[in-house]
């Protein structure tokens, strides 16, 4: 669906991403894992087309509809309902369908009763679910997520993970960066490990967690590189 060849991104003198090669297949749920500063976010942005890079990005027609959900959800100073309407308008959804799609999206996220409230008045977990509902409403083929549960408490985290699992079941392709190895294990079909701007490993989830890679990766998996596991 989407491939990236030899992509590098520099910010000033810092190489955020070096020679990244990655293919995303339909139905994948790819987890990008790695320490802070390993290039997960940059890789996500390069895949989504938000940042310039030196490589080649090829997007299949079926993967044209893409949305990204960020660690901190950005909501306009509008009601929950209107935030959805704006998203549907931006995505070019047919006007006749917008109300129906917005309604369904809010129900799935359990936010329909709150549709009249100011979106920014919702709790952190609710806003993240709203961001997911907003993304889902626009029927993306490919969904990118940048550490979507990093700021959430455990119960909110579980709700978000449930939504993501459901998306996967319904056929959406997802690429998610996370520093939570347990989450990667639970949700992903494939794990891509980054270290200091380079992709070090790209394996199916079981294979990744079973194998020994290099010493540094082992340290990471054991949690000696500063990271938590849940």
């Amino acid at each position, binding site marked *: 669906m989407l491939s990236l060849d030899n992509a590098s991104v520099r910010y000033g003198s810092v190489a955020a991403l070096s020679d990244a090669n990655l293919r995303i297949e339909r139905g994948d749920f790819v987890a990008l894992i790695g320490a802070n500063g390993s290039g997960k976010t940059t890789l996500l942005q390069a895949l989504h087309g938000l940042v310039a890079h030196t490589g080649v990005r090829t997007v299949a027609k079926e993967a044209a509809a893409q949305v990204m959900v960020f660690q901190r959800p950005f909501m306009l100073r*509008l*009601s929950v*309902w*209107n*935030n959805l*309407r*704006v998203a*549907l*308008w931006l995505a070019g959804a047919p*006007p006749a369908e*917008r*109300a129906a799609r917005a309604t369904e999206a809010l129900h799935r996220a359990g936010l329909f009763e709150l549709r009249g409230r100011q979106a920014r008045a919702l709790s952190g977990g609710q806003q993240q679910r709203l961001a997911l509902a907003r993304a889902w409403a626009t029927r993306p083929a490919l969904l990118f997520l940048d550490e979507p549960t990093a700021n959430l408490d455990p119960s909110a985290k579980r709700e978000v993970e449930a939504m993501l699992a459901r998306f996967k079941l319904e056929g959406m392709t997802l690429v998610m960066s996370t520093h939570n190895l347990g989450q990667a294990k639970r949700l992903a079909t494939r794990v891509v490990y980054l270290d200091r701007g380079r992709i070090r490993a790209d394996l199916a989830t079981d294979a990744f967690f079973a194998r020994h890679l290099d010493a540094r990766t082992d340290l990471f998996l054991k949690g000696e590189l500063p990271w938590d596991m849940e």
Partner: protein
Amino acid sequence: MGHGMKHFAGRRAAIAWLLAGLGAVALPAAAQDKFIVMASTTSTEQSGLFPHLLPAFKKASGIDVRVVAVGTGQALDMGRRGDADILFVHDTVAEEKFVAEGFGLPRRGVMYNDFVLIGPASDPAGVKGRDIVAALSKLAASNAAAPVAFVSRADKSGTHAAELRYWKSAGIDDPAVKVAGKLFDYRACGCSMGPALNIAASLEAYVLADRGTWLSFKNRGNLTVLVEGDKRLFNQYGVIVVNPARHPQTKTALAQAFSDWVVSADGQATIAAYKIGGEQLFFPNAAR
């Protein structure tokens, strides 16, 4: 369309309506009445003549006269640029030059008022009398115990031009030049009549003023009229229609209507009828 989007489109539409409405108010207002722009002087406006004179003209002709009051020099400039349709000023020499240069149709005398020399009631320089030139000589030669100050408008106005003529007649080419041993202080303010009077009031100085502004001036302090009645103090007003040959857009016909009216018996009588505190200010003297 979504609620949020309707909000947005509604906002845009509202702005468009607001602009249209304000435009409708602001622009055609100019086109409604018949009107002319008259460039006159600040001292004439401050004398209060116009609220008395112009409504009478409007009643007779239906024409609004919009007065832009500036200094004589600036008024003539407006005439040269064609921004005024008619001039109503009081500097005969400059007016003749203006007409000679082709900017205006022949000038007509309308009325005169007079200048008066104002000063502190204590009159330290002893100038009181009926002779303006003698008074100014005394001021410049003053050796009074306290410094004697004179406030000049110094703004290219008709009043300023007159003031310089009187100094010249008194043999003083440049009153600003300090003479050794004399305590005379010449203050040039570059301002109109009102502020000049304000300054004179606060400094207890002498100042040449037109009687009209003086009669309307409320901040007198210790000032009073010291010299008046000298024929040389008479201040002649002229009206000049701006030459359409130079600026075809000027409203010549309407301006001519005012010029004709103000020298007519009706206009002249209206001028004479204007009084402040029972005193007549302007004396009509248009040629028959």
